[in-house]
């Protein structure tokens, strides 16, 4: 049996090396197909992982209360795009009565210019209270966060993300205790948060955000309206309990479809299902090239069979059964297509390696197994007809073939 396969393999490989150009072009079809499928899958996986990381950065016991029905994205950037109700301090006070919520944080989001002596930057400002730091899992690298009293008195204190601090002052440390101007008001930089990374994909980095007491933003937010509330429960298992309570409390004032109460996993699931569907379609389109590659293999295998009719006849005369011939050509087709598959996979690894700095794509074990399995499968499916043709040749016609 060992002999059987090594002989078949040898004749197959030998045939390929005699027809290098043909072999290369035939496998190229599969190579391109596998490459595109693997790359698109890798992008999809990378994107999913990236989004998950962004969400997990906020912790899992987080509840978000937003106007409207849409739970798809955080409060960032949504302030102006979502209409409907806006919450106010009355809601904040009533929500504070919820027992199992350890933190409740209001958000007033505003994009504005922030001026340092030498530079001005357009930033996303989050007007909130002192609990914003534990709720968003932000730790302070230099200086300190604003205190509860700072928030309540609306003191002009500001905490910068490390990214924006660097842009304004050259480095995070240097920005500490400096003054910046937000609108017409002077603020003192009292802290810089620890870098969290993220951003990329065209989204602003969380490191570029600034945090200030919402009460200090009277010039922008006179009536103290909020875009959203974030609540953190004391334990994961209380999430549903707290959600129900939020719904009950806000339900007294608003219609139930005027606001929504969601948690991290809801948003994550929504986002994942959207990207999942999109990726599925893309991978499906890429899979068409695999089909085309398979047809190429079938074509070349038909050529190989008709070139080797005499050899088939010799093998039959020496005792090869129909199934031996079938297996022989099937093996050749599988080798041809899995060569394309393996090289496609290797190229995908190379591409992913080089773009990793720009995009968090990655190839998982399932993709590797799929690439090898699918490319061998294509060899079998598209190789079986030419191989059958070879096996069904009558020995006498084959050996007399000139």
């Amino acid at each position, binding site marked *: 049996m060992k*002999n*059987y396969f090594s*002989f078949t393999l*040898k*004749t197959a490989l*030998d*045939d390929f090396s*005699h027809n290098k150009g043909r072999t290369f072009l035939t496998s190229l079809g599969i190579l391109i197909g596998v490459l595109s499928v693997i790359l698109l899958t890798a992008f999809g996986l990378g994107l999913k992982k990236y989004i998950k990381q962004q969400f997990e950065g906020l912790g899992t016991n987080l509840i978000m209360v937003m106007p409207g029905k849409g739970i798809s994205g955080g409060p960032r950037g949504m302030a102006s795009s979502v209409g409907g109700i806006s919450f106010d301090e009355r809601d904040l006070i009533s929500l504070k009565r919820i027992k199992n919520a350890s933190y409740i944080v209001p958000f007033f989001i505003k994009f504005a210019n922030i001026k340092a002596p030498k530079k001005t930057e357009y930033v996303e400002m989050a007007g909130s209270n002192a609990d914003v730091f534990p709720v968003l899992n932000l730790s302070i690298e230099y200086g300190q966060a604003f205190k509860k009293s700072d928030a309540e008195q609306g003191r002009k204190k500001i905490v910068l993300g490390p990214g924006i601090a660097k842009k304004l002052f050259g480095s995070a440390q240097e920005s500490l205790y400096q003054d910046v101007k937000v609108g017409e008001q002077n603020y003192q930089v009292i802290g810089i948060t620890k870098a969290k990374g993220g951003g990329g994909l065209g989204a602003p980095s969380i490191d570029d955000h600034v945090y200030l007491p919402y009460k200090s933003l009277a010039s922008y937010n006179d009536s103290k309206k909020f875009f959203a509330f974030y609540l953190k429960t004391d334990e994961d298992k209380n999430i549903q309990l707290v959600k129900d309570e939020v719904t009950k409390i806000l339900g007294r004032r608003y219609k139930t479809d005027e606001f929504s109460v969601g948690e991290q996993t809801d948003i994550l699931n929504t986002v994942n299902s959207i990207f999942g569907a999109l990726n599925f379609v893309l991978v499906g389109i890429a899979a068409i090239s695999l089909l085309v590659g398979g047809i190429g293999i079938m074509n070349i295998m038909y050529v190989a069979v008709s070139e080797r009719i*005499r*050899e088939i006849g*010799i*093998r*039959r*005369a*020496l*005792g*090869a*059964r*129909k*199934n*031996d011939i079938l297996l022989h050509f099937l093996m050749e087709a599988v080798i041809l297509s899995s060569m394309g598959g393996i090289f496609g996979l290797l190229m995908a690894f190379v591409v992913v390696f080089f773009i990793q700095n720009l995009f968090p794509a990655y190839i998982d074990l399932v993709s590797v197994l799929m690439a090898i399995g699918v490319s061998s499968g294509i060899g079998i499916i598209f190789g079986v007809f030419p191989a059958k043709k070879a096996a069904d040749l*009558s*020995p*006498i016609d084959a*050996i007399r073939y000139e």
Partner: protein
Amino acid sequence: MLLLQNVSKEYHLDEDIVFKALQNINIEIEEGEFASIMGPSGSGKSTLMHLIGLLDKPSRGKIVIEGKDVSLLNDDQLSTLRNEFVGFIFQQFNLVNKLNVMENILLPFVYARKKLDYNPEKHAVYLMERFGIINKKNTYPNKLSGGQQQRVAIARALIMKPRLVLADEPTGNLDSKTGQEILNLLKELNKEKITIVIVTHDKNVAAITRKQIKIYDGKLV
């Protein structure tokens, strides 16, 4: 050992044109026989050889090998019988160009279903030594002379230790000296109790065999 009873072979060239390649052939070949089937080209001798070699089936009549009617065998069984019972030697040598000498000789063994009571690699080496081609063990057929190729083909025909060796014009592509060497080789093999049937158009070749079967226009004469 081998019996052909009233064997006929017809080809339907067109709807109503029937070519009778063989008509009512009766041949018996004994164990250890050294026979030739002789006739001019077109006489049906090749068709006859293909029938004896189990590459083709007769239109009528019976071929009996060791008491078994081969028309009752299916394709796989015929393949096995070709593998174990018959060794082929062709005019065109019919070596596989992609395999070297050693591999060509071992090729029938690749398709063997039965367990051999000898080591085929060792047997191949023995045959190569005997036929003076051992130094060509790793050479490919296109680098060999005609005589060397035919020796490889004979070694291949013998690797499964067949009871019957069928040689179709074994000297047809060789010069007379080399041809004579090949014939001497076959003669020697026959002395070792291997049944040999040579198909030829050449009287001189047929002359070395003990039993001469002459065929003309598809009939024995």
